Structure formats: structure tokens, C-alpha cells
């Protein structure tokens, strides 16, 4: 058979792409320019769609193709275009200094990755009989790391739009976890989740726009009037 039909090759490619996804997530933590952040997110989602497609190919699970296609359409094309238009409208291009400075936050992201690996270890059942998902371990570690680093980014960043991006990368991590654990959830749930993500981003985009209009900045640390 050809080399691309060998399942070992498929597994290596998936592991490689998962590693790139992780690298892109760390790049997002270190990145200052909003437009670059959006593009890194688009690249990350593209890799995720590819991972989903590769899994679908090697495990003959056609319903994952649909999930991959939806990821591509929504997270690689539509949402980045939406957000870039928003950035153009608001005309704020750069992130301001985050709460924890960049080198330290990159190091913290590395630490969170290790935590993700440790958590994923507990899922590794080499003796599990009936589960067909054998890629659980590697990509699950990346997925949990994505989740943790996205969470960290939400706390660390001060611009509203970057917080939205962090939330979206968190959802990316969840998608990867679902794919690697159980080949994705039932199709109707996947469709629902995508629809939710889409509407959520649009809603938050509108909110970000209104915040920038009202407060003249996207800095969420200025939203401190309501206390007690």
C-alpha cells in the first residue's frame, strides 16, 4: 500500500499537527498584534480541521468529515473575517501590556502544558477493550493544554477582543478533546455546538464594538464601575 495509507503514518501526522497546534497556542500568548492573533487562531483551527479530516480518513468515520468541514467553514473562514472587520472598524491594533509580562506568561503556558500532559495520563488505558479511539493520549494532552492556556489567556489579557479569541481557542481545545476521546460527539450535538460558537462570537463581537464605542477603548480593566 502507499505510504499515506499506512495507519502509522496517519498517527505520526496527527501527532505532528497536534504539536503545531500547541505551538500556535503558545504563539498566541506571546503575540501583541490583534490581527496576527486572529490569523494564528485561523491557522490553529485549520490544523484542527485537518486533524479531524485525517482521523476520519484513517478510521473510516464519515461523520467526522462533516465536523471537519464545519470547523473549516466557521472557524477558519467566517469568524476570522468577522473579527478582522471588527478590528478594522474599531481601529485598535495592538494589545497593551498584559497583567503578567510576556516571557513569564509564555513560561506559565509551558507549565500548564505539563499539567495538561499529567491530566491526560490518567486517561491512558492501554488495556481498555472496547474503545476504538487509540489516539486518546497524545492529542488529548494537547487538547487539555489548549484548554488551560486559553483559560490563562482570558485572565491575563486586557483587550476584550483577545479575551474572545482566548475563549474560542478554549473551545478549540474542547473540540480536539472530543475528537480524540470519542471521535466527536453525536452529529446533532456537534452541529448545535458549532451554531452556538458562531452565535456567541457574533454576540460578543457586537458587545466589543459597543464597549469600544462607549468606553473609547477595549481595555476591560476599565470596566470596574460595578462593585460590591
Amino acid at each position, binding site marked *: 500500500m502507499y505510504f499515506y495509507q499506512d495507519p502509522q503514518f496517519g498517527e*505520526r501526522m496527527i501527532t*505532528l499537527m497536534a504539536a503545531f497546534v500547541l505551538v500556535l497556542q503558545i504563539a498566541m500568548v*506571546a503575540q501583541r498584534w490583534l490581527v496576527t492573533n486572529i490569523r494564528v487562531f485561523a491557522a490553529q483551527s485549520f490544523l484542527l480541521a485537518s486533524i479531524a479530516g485525517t482521523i476520519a480518513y484513517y478510521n473510516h468515520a464519515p461523520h467526522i468529515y462533516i465536523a471537519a468541514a464545519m470547523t473549516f467553514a466557521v472557524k477558519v473562514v467566517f469568524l476570522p473575517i468577522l473579527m478582522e472587520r471588527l478590528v478594522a472598524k474599531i481601529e485598535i491594533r495592538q494589545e497593551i501590556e498584559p497583567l503578567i509580562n510576556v516571557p513569564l506568561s*509564555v513560561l506559565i503556558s*509551558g507549565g500548564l502544558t505539563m499539567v495538561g500532559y499529567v491530566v491526560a495520563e490518567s486517561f491512558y488505558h492501554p488495556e481498555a477493550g472496547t474503545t476504538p479511539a487509540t489516539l486518546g*493520549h*497524545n492529542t488529548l494532552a494537547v487538547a487539555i493544554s489548549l484548554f488551560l492556556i486559553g483559560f490563562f489567556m482570558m485572565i491575563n489579557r486586557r483587550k476584550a477582543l483577545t479575551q474572545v479569541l482566548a475563549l474560542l481557542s478554549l473551545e478549540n481545545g474542547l473540540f480536539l478533546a472530543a475528537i480524540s476521546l470519542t471521535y466527536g460527539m453525536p452529529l446533532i450535538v456537534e452541529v448545535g455546538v458549532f451554531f452556538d460558537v458562531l452565535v456567541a462570537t457574533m454576540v460578543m463581537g457586537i458587545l466589543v464594538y459597543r464597549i469600544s464605542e462607549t468606553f473609547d477603548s477595549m481595555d476591560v480593566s476599565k470596566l470596574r464601575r460595578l462593585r460590591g
Partner: protein
Amino acid sequence: MITTLLAAVFQLLLVLCISPLISGIIKTLKARLQMRRGPGVLQSYRNLFKLLRKQMVMPDTASWLFDAAPVMVFATAAVVGLLIPMITAQAPLSLFGGVLAVVYLLGLGRFFLALGGLDTGSSFGGLGSSREMTISSLAEPAMMLAIFTVALSANSTNLSEVARSAIGQSWRFLAPSQMLAFAALFIVLIAETGRIPVDNPATHLELTMIHEAMILEYSGPYLALIEWGASIKQLILMTLLINTFYPFGLSTNWSGASLAIGCGTYLLKLLILSTLIVLVETANAKMRLFRVPELLAVAFVLGALALISTFLF
């Protein structure tokens, strides 16, 4: 015994001769990408010959360090050149050290260069030295982590062992740990050789210099030694990068055919890496000095991730 001696001499000559060529190739490629003609690939040789014949001018306040620095830079770089497999999988002096020796010899050279910069008594020298030390203190851990990753998968810190064990396995370079380590080491390469986006090797403004500021007061043969040493260091780091991660074509025996193949593939890989460096240089602008730690922190984390993933992937 004789073969080892011959191999050592041959590799030394190779290192000394090819390093200015590589510098020239990089400069010319960069010029061509920027729609200029460039100085030509042999220009570095011409520079070296010119400098070797020129009169030397030294500052009054210089001490023995001023004389020692160029020699140390050149010597350490040349010795490291003998420790790394270039054409043959077995580096000539491989018995004398592995990864750690490489890192620390390069560190020794850098140390003396920084001292030499301070010794000149000019403020720009001190400026360059402190910047260089900042960058290298962040780049060294990243480099070590990346190299240890590779060493782990070969179960040895001897670079020849690493190269030899890697030749047999196919698709090994697709493993995430290798890719991450390559990325980390690439960033370190850019930092250590003073390329954009860390430092501009062609700048004339003293306030933006890092490497150039340290050697501002050097002239004549000393400057020739330092420049040669710098280009040897660049060649060494590039060779380290390509031969530990992609050791295809390294010859394992002394037959003429495999040596020729080794030579050819080595030059080809050097060219590809030079193109990559030039692309990165052209596509980016020089970073502010205070942003460089961020880039190196990313390299460090990549190296750490590479190390962890050897255990887990």
C-alpha cells in the same frame, strides 16, 4: 590513528574554508531578495585577506584581554568544528566531548569576546557586551534543552552517536519532539549568530548594535580573527542544526563514494538552511531589545516541550 589525524586536518580545513563562503552566500541571497546585486559570494574571503594585511590600531587602555579575545574566539570555534559531525558521522575529536563540550566551548568564546568588548574602555563596547550577555543567558538554556532532546532519543550526549543512531530510523524527524527542538534551536541560531530579528549584522548605528558594538575597536588581523571566528560559529551552529536533526547522507565509512555523497548532501543542506535564514531575516524587522527576551522565552518553552514530548509522545 592516521585516518583520525587526516580526518581532523581535513575537517579543520573544511571549516576554515567554507565558513566565509557561507557568510557570503547569505549576504548575496539577502541582497538578491531585496532586489540588489549584493557583494558577491567571495567577498568575505577578500575582506579577510585585506584585514590580515592591514595595520592594527589598539586603544591605550587595552590589556592582555584585548589580545586574548580574538584568539580565544577563533580557537574555540575551530575546536568545536572538530567535535561536530559534518561529512562523516564520526566527528574527528568526538572522544573529547559531546554536546556539553560544544555548548561550553562556545560559551567560553563568547565570554572572552564580551570581556574584550569591555576591555576597550569605550562605552559602546560595554553596551554591546551587556546586551550580548543578556541574550546568551536566555538562549543557552533553550539550546541545551533542544540538544538534550535529541540526545535523549539517542541515549548519548556524544554527537556522533546521535547522528549515527538517527541515520537508521526513517520518519523519525516527523516526531513532534524533533520538530519542536528544531524550532527552538533555529531561534537560538538566529540569536547566537546575531541575525535579524535579534540583531542586525549590517547596521551602522552604534545604539542598535550588539555583536558589532563589542568589536568596534578591533582592527587589522585581530578583526580578521574575530570575523572568521564569528562565521565559523555560524557554520558550526548551522551544521549542528542540520546534522543532528536530518543526518541523511552522513557517511559512516571512509570510502570515496560515500565521502563524496556526504560532501554533496552537506553543502546542499547548508544551502537550504541559509535560504531559510535569509527568508526569516527578510520577512522580519529587528526587534526592540526588550522584546528579545520574549522570543527567547518562546524558544525556551519550545525546548522544554520538546524534552517532555520525548517522554510522552
